[in-house]
């Protein structure tokens, strides 16, 4: 199942030995994704795909060319390097080119589990059956996904950099639907042992059962409890709009010109740490640079941004190991392993601290109408409740929330324990941000509209 270091790295190194270029780099990302989707208590799609993405970056005359393919055959790699070189020769020299990375000691990969890499279709169906049995037992129906991924990343270049890391990911989501509403729960980790189907089912069922007799919330400002998935959604927009060298260079970041200043509340601290053994990450980036922990905001004070080699060059610093897959993110760094400081407040304590406000489980299809303020807008789903006098009293029709992340986090009153969570975009393959983040109770969240009952 796993190809291993030699099978992934040796073809790259062999191809590079024959490369005729100033500098050349090959990066390969293999992904075997087994995804079982279920709806109405039945599996309706059950797919596995094994794909290998190879990217060649070649420097010729100071210009960079990129070509990609999906084969590690020697002839294909030779052709790929030639294509990348031809592309470089058509491009203009990059006066700011920082050069490819050199050899470096790469930390051992932590997010890999051999047993998870061997997970089969029967095991996935069994986990789903436990969720659907629990839902059916309540007269509800369950939908969701059980996903197991094996990845292998390898990078080599003509400067002698060589890195390899396997990774695994396991994910189970359950959306339980009753006659009156819906409830959501999920588990995420780098091992199938992190998935507890019975617990996922129980949490989703509890919310679905509570989601009845919905009422509408008028637009306005409310106290709020944001669960982990909702917090991850807000963090996504901070990351994309303000935590990278590129956004800083463009003056688009909320950090621009404000390092050392209080940009949000003192209870908010955020850092990027791909080496935290709880998160999903490989220990080097797509340029072969070992990943480093980067403090982003401490006690509400702007501290730093992440860099790849290009943005490090712009700011005369060194790469923090945050070069991203160029198929998804542009040059200039990507903060994709966010950790937000948590606390010890229980769920009950978060809710009981609210006089009148809203509990938000998660968001759907969010966006940012004002990137400079890291403003997010989006509708809630699968568990939106009114809290009155410290108790959940009503289910709410989904609400539209629109607010700057900085304003939201300025109002943090209480923090719960951290949990691994992804925003809607990343959990659905449209982004690559993983958060270790807490549920929070905030003094003020802006609700700008409501969906119908």
């Amino acid at each position, binding site marked *: 199942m796993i190809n291993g270091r030699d099978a992934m790295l040796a073809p790259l190194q062999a191809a590079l030995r024959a490369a005729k270029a100033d500098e050349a780099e090959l990066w390969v990302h293999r992904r075997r994704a087994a995804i079982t989707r279920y709806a109405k208590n039945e599996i309706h799609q059950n*797919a596995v795909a094994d794909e290998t993405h190879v990217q060649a970056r070649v420097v010729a005359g100071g210009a960079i060319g990129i070509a990609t393919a999906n084969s590690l055959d020697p002839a294909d790699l030779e052709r790929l390097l030639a294509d990348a070189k031809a592309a470089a020769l058509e491009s203009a020299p990059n006066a700011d080119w920082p050069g490819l990375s050199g050899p470096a000691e790469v930390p051992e990969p932590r997010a890999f589990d051999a047993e998870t890499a061997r997970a089969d279709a029967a095991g996935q169906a069994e986990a789903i059956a436990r969720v659907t049995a629990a839902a059916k037992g309540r007269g509800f129906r369950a939908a969701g996904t059980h996903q197991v991924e094996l990845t292998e990343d390898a990078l080599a270049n003509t400067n002698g950099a060589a890195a390899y890391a396997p990774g695994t990911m396991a994910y189970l989501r359950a959306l339980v639907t009753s006659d009156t509403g819906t409830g959501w729960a999920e588990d995420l980790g780098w091992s199938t042992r992190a998935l507890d189907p019975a617990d996922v089912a129980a949490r989703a069922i509890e919310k679905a059962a509570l989601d009845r007799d919905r009422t509408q919330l008028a637009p306005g400002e409310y106290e709020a409890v944001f669960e982990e998935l909702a917090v991850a959604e807000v963090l996504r927009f901070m990351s994309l709009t303000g935590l990278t060298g590129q956004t800083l260079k463009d003056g688009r970041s909320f950090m621009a010109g404000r390092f050392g200043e209080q940009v949000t509340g003192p209870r908010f601290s955020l850092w990027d740490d791909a080496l935290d053994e709880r998160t999903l990450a490989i220990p080097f980036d797509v340029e072969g640079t070992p990943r480093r922990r980067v403090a982003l905001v401490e006690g509400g004070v702007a501290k730093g941004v992440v860099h790849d080699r290009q943005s490090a060059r712009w700011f005369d610093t060194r790469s923090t190991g945050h070069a991203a897959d160029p198929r998804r993110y542009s040059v200039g760094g990507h903060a994709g392993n966010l950790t937000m400081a948590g606390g010890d407040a229980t769920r009950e304590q978060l809710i009981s601290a609210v006089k009148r406000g809203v509990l938000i489980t998660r968001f759907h299809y969010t966006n940012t109408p004002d990137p400079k303020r890291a403003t997010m807008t989006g509708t809630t789903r699968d568990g939106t409740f009114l809290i009155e006098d410290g108790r959940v009293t009503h289910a709410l029709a989904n609400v539209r929330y629109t607010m700057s992340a900085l304003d939201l986090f300025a109002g943090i009153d209480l923090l719960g324990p951290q949990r691994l969570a992804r925003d809607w975009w990343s959990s659905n393959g449209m982004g690559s941000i993983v958060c270790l983040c807490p549920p929070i109770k905030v003094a003020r969240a802006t609700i700008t509209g409501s969906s119908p009952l």
Partner: protein
Amino acid sequence: MVPERDSQLADLVDLGARRGAAYADARRVEREYEAVAVRDGEVESVTRSADRGIGFRVIYKGAWGFAATDRTDEASLRSVVDEAFARAAAAATTRAAPVALAPVAAQRGEYRTALGRDPFAVPLAERIALLRAADANLKGPHAVSRRGSIAAYRTRKHLVTSEGTDVQQEIVESGAGVAVTAVKAGAKPAQRYDSRLVRQAGWEFIEHLDLPSRAARYRDDAEAMLDAPLAAERPTTLVFTPEFLALLVHESCGHPTEADRVLEHEVAFAGTTFMWPKDRGALRYGSEHVSMTADATVPGGMGTFGWDDDGVPALRTKLVDRGTFVGYLTSRETAAALGLPVAIGSARAEGWQHFPIVRMVNVSLDPGTQSYDTLLRGVDEGLLLEAPASYSLDDKRQNFHFSTQSARVIRRGALEGYARGISFQSLTPAFWARCDRVADDWELHGFLSCAKGEPLQLMRVGHGAAHARFRDVPIEVRA
């Protein structure tokens, strides 16, 4: 024309049938992509990519199983067959009823994009020269970032099924875009861009775009938005460009008419719909001026093909007829599940590694009969929204929020300067009910990356629209 037999695909399908599959198909896909980007007048990147592989799908024991590989040696293909059957067998343990497919006659033939000039054959120097000409027109007093790109895409696809279908397609697409960001002290940065300029066509489409003129218009818009006054926050008449409406149609009509949303296949990701089977023929989706059509036969459409990935030939069907919801986008499976005949084939997979799911084809707002000038003359006071910026939708496609890159003020039937800070949120039927006129200047747009499915699939889709007018739309204004 009957395609040459692909023995590898035919062998896979034969093996599937011998092992007891009620249905099997094998699909070989090869994709090529080439793009050149210019930033601030210099070539920023030239990128080439390619991939190829085979996807194999079976219905076995009443359930789907799918496996895909980028290796075509015998051992890998045997393993793909084993995996597809194992996944179907595992899925079958949860099913109450077997998967059924709506009947379609076996198909044979070839489809190719009609090309004036192959975009891959255009010398890079010619593409770069065009981008540099456009870049020169993006320069303005406050432009801090200028970008342009031209791309070409080619997909070769061969589908063989156990029902006798054997079809080959070669689809070529061309696209381009320009973008400018203007910054001025004390003003909110202004961006003007378009990432939707794609067509199933050759280089002639790139020439048709007239990138230099478009760039000049974007520069003028961005510069003007820097100094534009805030709009007044009150309900007003909105006129939308075809480009803006293409996205509105996509999000608020295309997605909620996808039949897999009705069956809750997408409930845990993309969501469901507010347009249920009981609503067909009854739900007022919009005003009498609003009709929408799904059409996989539109020449040049990004959702045009010979056959979908179920082997259904390109068809055309109504989704909204004079304001009433009437139809769905379906696959063979979802049509059968809903008891519908195959009125449209919308089963599409992004690549070889993807299971075909219900996607849009070309979903368009039907044109009206009035000219744009006449439509505009009917506005005493209002706004022309030119291109979408941020957008956000709920999981039923019922509640949406859009903002705009640039807006023109309409006064007494004429365009008069700019206004900024405008966004609007609405419920879908309430929004389309406000449409009191659609113009006759229908034009086709396309999107490259409609996201749906797990693993995520980015699909090309087409949308036609004309200018249209909406009365008394509440707007939000933020500095």
